[in-house]
């Protein structure tokens, strides 16, 4: 497909690839303007943005820059009137330090880490300060001994 009206004004090759819709998306450009310098992370942030807004339909998704980490963070509410949460989007091959996690937690909002895989699979994990007791296992509980005896009887 021939491209007309190229924005950069450079010399035009014969065939141009179709425009990258991501690069042209206003939200992406907003993130780019934050100038964090890590394009892979910005790309990841954009994919998370799309998931939160279009798929999960969360509200008031906005992007902010974390100066300490030089990363794009997202602030979002799950529903109208719900508390603000911070989402840290990261490409899955990245590494991070506990310190940087603490710095995001220090913003004071509940935090979600989102890992973005190469095939754009997203995995969300909650990170909380302190010791959060896990949910107890759900009943009803069966006495293991009797179950085993029943099994043996049936086998005979």
């Amino acid at each position, binding site marked *: 497909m021939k491209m007309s009206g190229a924005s950069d004004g450079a010399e035009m090759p014969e065939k141009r690839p179709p425009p990258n819709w991501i690069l042209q998306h206003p939200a992406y450009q907003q993130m780019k303007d934050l100038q964090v310098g890590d394009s892979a992370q910005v790309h990841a942030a954009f994919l998370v943005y799309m998931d939160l807004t279009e798929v999960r339909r969360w509200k008031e998704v906005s992007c902010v820059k974390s100066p300490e980490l030089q990363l794009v963070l997202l602030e979002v509410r799950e529903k109208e009137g719900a508390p603000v949460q911070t989402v840290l989007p990261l490409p899955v091959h990245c590494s991070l*330090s506990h*310190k940087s996690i603490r710095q995001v937690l220090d913003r004071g909002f509940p935090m979600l880490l989102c890992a973005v895989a190469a095939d754009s699979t997203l995995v969300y994990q909650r990170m909380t300060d302190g010791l959060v007791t896990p949910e107890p296992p759900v009943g009803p509980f069966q006495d293991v001994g009797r179950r085993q005896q029943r099994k043996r009887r049936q086998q005979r």
Partner: protein
Amino acid sequence: MEAPSCRERPPGSEEEKEDPAVVVGLSLCDSAPLVWRMQDLRTVRSRGLVGALLGSLPRAPRQNGRLGRPLLLLPEEERLLREHHAAAALPQPDRSQAMSGLLKQDGVRAELCQQYEEQQQRSFEEQSVLALEDRKSALHRAMTSSHISAESGAGTSDEALQHRLQTLDQNFTFPRSALAVQLSTARTGLSYCSEARALLQADWPIRQRCKPHCDARYQVYRDLRGRGFYLTSAGKFGGDFLVYPGDPLRFHAHFIAVCVTLDESICLLDVLAVTRLGSNVKKTVLLCSPGADGGVCYTSLQWSGMV
């Protein structure tokens, strides 16, 4: 592990044998700190340290499930005991103490051998006597049974019996190979940890181990222990510690503690893996780092539930 008995012990008692509450004796097997004595195990548990049992109980069933002494301590547990001056290493038989040590050891061994030989000899003599009596009564029964007395008169059978008994007396030998020997399977004590070695004679310090990661682990261990949690090793879950809200015999673990320094770079895939594992076994993963001020900061990692 056998449940500890509930005898009351006076704190700060002078009696070394009765009092488990002051200093725990550790036997070092290479670098592994082992606890052998029952009172030491009780002390260790009463301090909220769990350790791991390694030995087998040869007379008990399901020997893979229920283990016996010795108790292996975590390096952090040993270090905590050391910091509270509550542990000392038992003196090992020193190989460099050449002659006198060896002779002493040989002397003890020779003495034991001699005692054993004497015991065997006594047993042999007793058993010979018993065997002879046994034979005599068997002979008597055989000679005085009905079909024999029918063949000859009463008088002659008596004489014949006496004659036979006499020959038996003179010619009877009890062969050594017929000796019944008892092999004891129960030990009355642990011979390599004899009470004769006074624990308080051991005043040389337990060897230091310096690794940067070990320090982070220890800070976390000490902080969590100080908050009343019980900790064991978490190799099964790929973490550093399993954190229990109370004694592990009564509770399931709530947390898998992973100890890192604040600046250490962690691969995101590892974070995802350990969190996923934690959610599958209903435990929260704790990322623990000692801070600069001596405190420890904890971050709980949980599955978000967002599919």
